[in-house]
């Protein structure tokens, strides 16, 4: 691995995103829009909004970066740039970590904007530190990106890659414990949710917003990091120097 190549890759990915103004606007504005929507869906039920809102600030980046990164990597594959990169002195991790850094930067901005709007304008209330919600948002974004990069290897077209969102992310969202506490779900689903990455992403956010900053939160963060590393390693195995 080389810091030069990794940073150059991160810079290149950010430059590509910057050129796509509309995507950038959507990435930054959709979370605040959804939070606003949520506030008035739970009109007069501030307690519910306060329970659901803060974790969502940290979950949005997971979903966005999963989608954006899987499409971006698919384009590298179909556009021939991946084959070129694989024939150059570039380590697979240079590429993956470069993507990770770029999307972490975007997620930091996205999470901050969502937090600013949620906690500032919409009157979201949380017992825990808001900065921790933003930090977890960045960690979740990198996790979502790593999963997206890995799964994109199994999509041949952008249509397929987009369908991976409802196929892989939505079930995790349903089982994460946000909609229904996990111990109230069917036992089988609770067990399934034990091995799903977003379960730990949500749990960390729920504990952070409840100011429950103990060992369980630290464990959640470790599991998130573990899943991220695992997805990156699996992602690296899908990058082939030689193809049929």
């Amino acid at each position, binding site marked *: 691995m080389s810091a030069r190549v990794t940073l150059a890759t991160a810079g290149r990915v950010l430059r590509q995103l910057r050129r796509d103004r509309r995507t950038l606007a959507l990435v930054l504005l959709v979370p605040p829009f959804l939070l606003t929507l949520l506030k008035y869906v739970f009109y007069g039920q501030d307690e519910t909004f306060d329970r659901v809102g803060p974790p969502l600030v940290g979950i949005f980046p997971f979903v966005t970066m999963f989608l954006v990164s899987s499409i971006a990597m698919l384009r590298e594959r179909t556009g021939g740039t991946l*084959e*070129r990169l694989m024939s150059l*002195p*570039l380590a697979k991790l240079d590429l993956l970590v470069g993507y990770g850094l770029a999307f972490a930067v975007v997620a930091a901005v996205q999470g901050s904007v969502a937090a600013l709007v949620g906690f500032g304008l919409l009157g979201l209330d949380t017992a825990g530190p808001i900065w921790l919600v933003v930090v977890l948002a960045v960690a979740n974004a990198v996790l979502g990106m790593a999963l997206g990069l890995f799964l994109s290897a199994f999509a041949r077209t952008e249509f397929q890659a987009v369908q991976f969102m409802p196929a892989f992310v939505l079930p995790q969202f349903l089982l994460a414990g946000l909609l229904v506490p996990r111990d109230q779900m069917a036992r089988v689903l609770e067990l399934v949710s034990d091995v799903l990455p977003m379960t730990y992403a949500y749990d960390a956010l729920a504990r952070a917003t409840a100011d429950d900053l103990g060992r369980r939160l630290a464990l959640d963060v470790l599991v998130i990091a573990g899943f991220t590393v695992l997805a990156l390693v699996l992602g690296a195995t899908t990058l082939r*120097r030689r193809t049929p």
Partner: protein
Amino acid sequence: MLENPRRTMSTDGLAVSIQDLRVRRGGHLVLPGFSLEIRRGIVTGLLGPNGSGKTTLIRAIVGVQIVESGEVTVLGSPAGSRELRRRVGYVTQAPSVYGDLTVRENLHYFARVLDAPDDRIDETIRTVALGGHTDQVVGTLSGGERSRVSLATALLGRPQLLVLDEPTVGLDPVLRRDLWATFHELAAGGTTLLVSSHVMDEAERCDDLILLRAGRIVATGSPAELRDRTNADDLEDAFLLLAEAS
């Protein structure tokens, strides 16, 4: 045009040496046992119709092709080995650059990957005559301009072997002539070039030729040799005669 005399080859003088290469793509045996040698410091043309196996052969030389059996040695090392990633430049048939970045941004990125100095960026832009489009987004360029960006990217690291898959398709004649002049300048400077084409009039511009048909070598030699051997006036006829005889 240079006319390189054929000489007895030592492996030192070889840029590429291939022995009994077999490649299967999509269940189809594209290269059924293939042996070949390419000399250093000249422009070798890989000529043949679409589907003759040119791209597969090129991919095997660059080391991105999974091969069934055989040996491909490039600049003294097995094809695709790590130390070759800096020494071999590869330009695919479809331009493989980022359409959403400008010409300069593309070259800047690949220069970082190759650890090439920044002044190489402007040099290569001049070489491929894209000076007027430096800050244009590649996606808005014409097809010919895009393939020149792709070519510039491969030139950045001053590779010892430059492998170009149909680099002049769709280019206007003036530009095509200029690019061929560039290829010969590079060769004069010691670079080995392997250029594929399905257009016979480009064959005349090569120092050495490999004529390929249905995954087999029909003939190799300089344009003059091939004409002499067949008593043909032009290479198109020579190719036909050689193809029928084989």
